[in-house]
């Protein structure tokens, strides 16, 4: 039996074929791997500008955020000032109301005054001031 088994030997061409197919597979696998790495490198190169742009966008977004924070702060200050001004306006309105009251009182007093009155007569005469005495006159030279 053992001998019979020994007599059944794997033919050499089968071994060669198996070796060749294994080699071809390995080479195919290597080629596929190479192509895939080249493709990925190109993809990385294509995406680099987009990444840089995203980084710039992120920085600008940060700046914008800071500006918005400052604007918010200024707005809050302006709102506080406006609220304070509102108090002043209220004070001014109160003063105007007092003034209106005083004016209406004056109107009442003025109504009791006479509409016209005579001034005392003054007799006088107005003379134009004459030119001062001069040493000589300048006039047409004739030249």
């Amino acid at each position, binding site marked *: 039996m053992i001998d019979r088994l020994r007599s059944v030997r794997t033919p050499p061409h089968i071994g060669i074929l198996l070796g060749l197919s294994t080699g071809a597979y390995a080479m195919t696998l290597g080629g596929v791997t190479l192509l895939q790495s080249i493709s990925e490198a190109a993809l990385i190169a294509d995406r680099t500008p987009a990444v840089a742009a995203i980084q710039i966008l992120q920085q600008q977004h940060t700046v914008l955020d800071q500006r918005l924070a400052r604007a918010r702060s200024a707005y809050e200050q302006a709102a506080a000032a406006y609220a304070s001004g509102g108090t002043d306006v209220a004070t001014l309105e109160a003063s105007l109301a007092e003034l209106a009251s005083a004016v209406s009182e004056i109107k009442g007093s003025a109504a009791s005054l006479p509409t016209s009155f005579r001034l005392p007569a003054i007799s006088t005469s107005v003379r*134009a*001031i*004459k*030119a*001062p*005495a*001069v*040493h*000589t*006159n*300048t*006039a*047409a*030279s*004739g*030249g």
Partner: protein
Amino acid sequence: MLAVRAGVADGAPDPWAAAGSVASTEPERRSGRALGSPLSLLATKAADLDAAWVAVQAVMGEVDLAMSRFREDSELTRCNRRSPGSVAGVSRPLTRALTQADRAMRVTGGMFDPRVVAALEAVGYVGAAQTGPGPSIATARAAPGRVLHRDGRDGPISLPAPVDLGGIGKGLALRWAADAVVRGGFHAVAPGTGFLIDAGGDIVTVGVPSVGERWRIGIEDPRGGAEPLAVLELSGRAAVATSSIQRLRWDHKGVAAHHLIDPRTGEPGGDGLLAVTVAGPDPAWAEVWSKTLFLEGADGIAHAARRRGLAAWWATEDGRIEMTPAARVRTVWVAGEA
């Protein structure tokens, strides 16, 4: 020889008006005629007043003989008749006057131009007869260049065109007469003393009339009013000149004409003005500027006078009297503002 000082700056203390050892008195007057106009010397009473008057008359006579356009025997008439030819042996006063007129023409950009004889004669203001055809009005109007040409320092003088030195000649006569009086030793440089020379409305002053006083000059109303239009005060070495059409105005061929010729047009100029008065340190330049400003007319005179910083007063045809800021500080009275 006594020195003559320049005019006193505005606002500065005036040593001439300061009280001094000389007694204050009313000025004395000497009167006569020269250069076709009334001439008077007004001066503090002094023993040498007559000598001063003789000196003034001598200078005026010399100038008249040298520069009159109306005398047949004057040097200027001789030069004008030879124009554009050259004349040798021209006197020192006429040479100085021609040189001064040439400079005035350049300084005023040609607005003061004594070469307008042809234009003057064309409107009827005729002087001594000229021989030969003389230049046309167009020549007098357009001629560029100089009043005179001279070969070397002492060579013969030639006038490219006949000239009229009437106004500037009178101003120079006043300048030289004042110099002569001071040179003669008149005590005008002492505090509280001085003199004034008036040649037909052009005036030069030296010193003051009396202690604490200044010379008061009235600007005559060119419309003939009895009162002056304004009164100004001067002291020290100062001058006033007026260019006016009050006396030299006539009808020429039915058109109103006068003797102040605009060299740009060759015709009487100064639209809208009756008279222009200018005050300054020198009578010749006061005369030059009064004539130059007159030719600017009512529309341009204010700008021209202020641009030059001149003390100028002007009377317009519509009866107004106007003045520059520099004139205002010298004015003590104005008609209509009293």
